[in-house]
C-alpha cells in the first residue's frame, strides 16, 4: 500500500522544518562568530595604536614605559598581552601581563602589514602582529615587530553559550512547529477522514448517500460518487423492471397455452406432453429470470441500501399466515429490531419468502424465524414443527426442482432459488433438524 497522505506530509514537512531551522541556525551562528571576531580584531588594533602612542625613544631604540595606561597590560595573566621584538625575532619587551606567557614562536610580519593568527599559549589566543620601522631623528632606522595578544577563552565561551541557547530555542521552535503541523494536518485532512467514515457508513448500511458538507476540492469527488451510487441503483431498478416485464409478457401466453391444452380435445398423451413442455418452459423462464436478477447480487454493495430484517420477516409471516389461514400457524419472529443487511430487498424477500413458504407448507402448527450475527456473518434460521427432512434426503433436497415432500403443490424451485441468491451473496444454505421437531434451514450471509 502507498504511504498515507498524512505520513507523506508529516515526513516531508518535518524534514523541511529541520532543514530550514538547521540552515538558519548555522547562518546565525556563523554571523555571530564573525561579528565577535571582527570586534576583537578592532580592539586589538586599538590596543596596538595605544601601545605605539605610549612608546618612547632611547638612543635610537624603541622603549616602553613600565606601566601602561590599560591596566589589563599591567596585570599578570589578564588575558591581554603585548610583546615587541626585533626584526630578527629577538624579543625586546613584554607587557607585565605577559611575563609568564609561553609563546612557541613569534611569526615575522612584513612592515606596514597587520597579520592575524590563532595560537595556543596555555589557552586559545588571537594574535595581531605588525611590522614597524623605528626611525629616530638621528641614527639608523630599526625594524620592530609588535604583537598584541588577546585570550579568546571568553569569546569562545560566549560563542558556545550563544550557540547552546540558539539551538535550545531552535529545538523548541522545531518541536512546536512539528506539533503545529500535526494539528494543521489533522484539521486539513479531517474531510478525508469523514469521507472514509461516510463511505463506511454507506457500506454498513447506516447511510444512503454522502453528505454535501465537503470542502470544494472534494465536492467533485463526493458529488460524482453520489451520482454513481444513484445511477447504479437506477440501473439495477431498470434491469429488474425489464426482467419483470419479460416475465409478465412470457407468462400470460404460457397460461393461455396451458388453458388451451385442456380444451383442444387432444388425445390424453398429447395433452400430457403439452402440459409437461409448458411446465418446462415455465420453469426455464422462472429459473433464468431468477438467476439474472440474483447475479446483480453484490456487484456494488455501496449502491444497495440496507434492509431491516425484522419488519421484512413480519411482512412475510403476515402474508403467509393469510395464505395458510386454514392451518392457523403460530409464528414467532425473534429477529432483533436493529438487525439489518445490505442486500436488495427483493433478494431477501425471495430467499426468506421461499424458505418461510416451505416452512408453512411443512409445519403442523409452529414456524419460527431468528437471526444472530457476529463480526463476520449474519445467520438467519427458520424452524418448523413439521415432518422434517430425512437424513438420507438432506443432500438431494437442494438439487434443482427436487423436493423431499411432494404433498404440497408448487414448482419445487423455492429452495434452489433461495440457494442461488444466497450464493450470489457468497453465503451458505444449510438444512438440519429443528428443535421444534421439523426442519431447520439456516442462511449464513457474510457481513463484509
Amino acid at each position, binding site marked *: 500500500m502507498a504511504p498515507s497522505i498524512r505520513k507523506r506530509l508529516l515526513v516531508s514537512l518535518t524534514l523541511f522544518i529541520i532543514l530550514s531551522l538547521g540552515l538558519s541556525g548555522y547562518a546565525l551562528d556563523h554571523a555571530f562568530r564573525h561579528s565577535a571576531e571582527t570586534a576583537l580584531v578592532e580592539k586589538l588594533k586599538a590596543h596596538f595604536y595605544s601601545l605605539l602612542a605610549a612608546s618612547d625613544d632611547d638612543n635610537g631604540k624603541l622603549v616602553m614605559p613600565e606601566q601602561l595606561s590599560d591596566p589589563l597590560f599591567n596585570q599578570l595573566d589578564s588575558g591581554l598581552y603585548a610583546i615587541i621584538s626585533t626584526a630578527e625575532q629577538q624579543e625586546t619587551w613584554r607587557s607585565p601581563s605577559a611575563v609568564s606567557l609561553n609563546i612557541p614562536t613569534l611569526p615575522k610580519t612584513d612592515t606596514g602589514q597587520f597579520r592575524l593568527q590563532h595560537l595556543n599559549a596555555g589557552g586559545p589566543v588571537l594574535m595581531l602582529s605588525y611590522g614597524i620601522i623605528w626611525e629616530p631623528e638621528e641614527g639608523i632606522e630599526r625594524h620592530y615587530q609588535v604583537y598584541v595578544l588577546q585570550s579568546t577563552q571568553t569569546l569562545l565561551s560566549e560563542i558556545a553559550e550563544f550557540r547552546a541557547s540558539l539551538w535550545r530555542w531552535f529545538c523548541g521552535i522545531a518541536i512546536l512547529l512539528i506539533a503545529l503541523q500535526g494539528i494543521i494536518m489533522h484539521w486539513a485532512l479531517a474531510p478525508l477522514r469523514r469521507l472514509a467514515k461516510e463511505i463506511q457508513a454507506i457500506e454498513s448500511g447506516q447511510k444512503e448517500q454522502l453528505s454535501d458538507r465537503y470542502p470544494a476540492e472534494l465536492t467533485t469527488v463526493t458529488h460524482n460518487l453520489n451520482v454513481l451510487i444513484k445511477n447504479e441503483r437506477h440501473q439495477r431498478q431498470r434491469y429488474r423492471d425489464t426482467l*419483470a416485464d419479460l*416475465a409478465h409478457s412470457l407468462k*400470460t401466453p*404460457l397460461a*393461455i397455452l396451458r*388453458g388451451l391444452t385442456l*380444451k383442444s380435445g387432444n388425445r390424453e398423451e398429447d395433452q400430457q406432453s403439452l402440459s409437461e413442455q*409448458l411446465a418446462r418452459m415455465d420453469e426455464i423462464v422462472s429459473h433464468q429470470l431468477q438467476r439474472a436478477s440474483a447475479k446483480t447480487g453484490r456487484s456494488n454493495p455501496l449502491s444497495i441500501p440496507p434492509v431491516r430484517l425484522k419488519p421484512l420477516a413480519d411482512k*412475510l409471516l403476515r402474508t403467509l399466515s393469510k395464505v395458510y389461514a386454514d392451518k392457523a400457524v403460530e409464528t414467532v419472529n425473534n429477529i432483533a429490531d436493529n438487525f439489518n443487511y445490505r442486500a436488495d430487498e427483493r433478494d431477501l*424477500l425471495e430467499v426468506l419468502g421461499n424458505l418461510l413458504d416451505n416452512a408453512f407448507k411443512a409445519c403442523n402448527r409452529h414456524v419460527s424465524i431468528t437471526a444472530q450475527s457476529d463480526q463476520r456473518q449474519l445467520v438467519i434460521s427458520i424452524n418448523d414443527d413439521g415432518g422434517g427432512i430425512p437424513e438420507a434426503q438432506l443432500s438431494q433436497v437442494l438439487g434443482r426442482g427436487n423436493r423431499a415432500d411432494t404433498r404440497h403443490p408448487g414448482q419445487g424451485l423455492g429452495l434452489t432459488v433461495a440457494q442461488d441468491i444466497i450464493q450470489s451473496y457468497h453465503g451458505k444454505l444449510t438444512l438440519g433438524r429443528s428443535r421444534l421437531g421439523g426442519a431447520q434451514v439456516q442462511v449464513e450471509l457474510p457481513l463484509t
Partner: protein
Amino acid sequence: MRALIVEDEPQLRQQLADAISDAGYSIDQAADGQEGLYYGQEYPYDIAIIDLGLPKLNGIELIQRLREQKHNYPILILTARANWQDKVEGLEAGADDYLVKPFHMEELLARLNALIRRAAGQANPVLSAGYIQLDTRTQQVLARKQAINLTAYEYKILEYLMLNPQKVVSKTELTEHIYAQDYDRDSNVIEVLIGRLRKKLDPHNQENPITTLRGRGYQLSLN
C-alpha cells in the same frame, strides 16, 4: 357463487370464465382495472380473481380501493411475476391468496373453493348441516348418507345457504350470488328452485330444512 374475473388478456379471461362457470359459478368479467372496480363495487361477489398487471388501474390499487370501500369478499390474485415482492404487495393490499401464472385450472378452482369456505368460516371442504352433507370439491350432496341429484342452480342455492347457516338470506341476495348481472330479478324462479330443493331434501315434509321468513327471505334452519 358469484365470481368476478378481472384479467386484461382476452384469451386467458375467456379460459378463466369457461372453467369457473363450468364449476358452477356465475361470473362477471372485466378487462381492465377501472371496469373491475365498477363491478367490484356494484355487485356482491363471493370471490374475485384479479390479475396484478392490469391497464388503467393496476391490480394492487384495485384491491386497495375495494378494501377501502369495505368489500370484504375473498380476492385471489393472479400474477405473472413469481417474486415475493409482488406476492407480499398484493396480499398486504388486501388479497387473500395468490396464484402464479401459468397455473393449472384445477389448482385455481381448489383455491377458489377454499377461499370461499374460509371466508364463510368453514374450514372443512365438506359442509354439513343436520342430516345434509355437501362436498364443495365434488359438488355432491348427501341427505342421510343418500346421494341426492341436484340441478346446477339448486346446488348453488344450497351451497350458498350452507355457507351462511342460520343467516336470513333474502331473495335478492340469493339471486345476486347465483345469477350473472343481466338476470331479471322480478321473476319467481328463486321460489321455484327453493320449492324443488325442499322436495328433494325433505321428501316427506318432516325436517323442514329451509324456513321461509315472509318478506325477509330464507334460512337454513338445521344445525
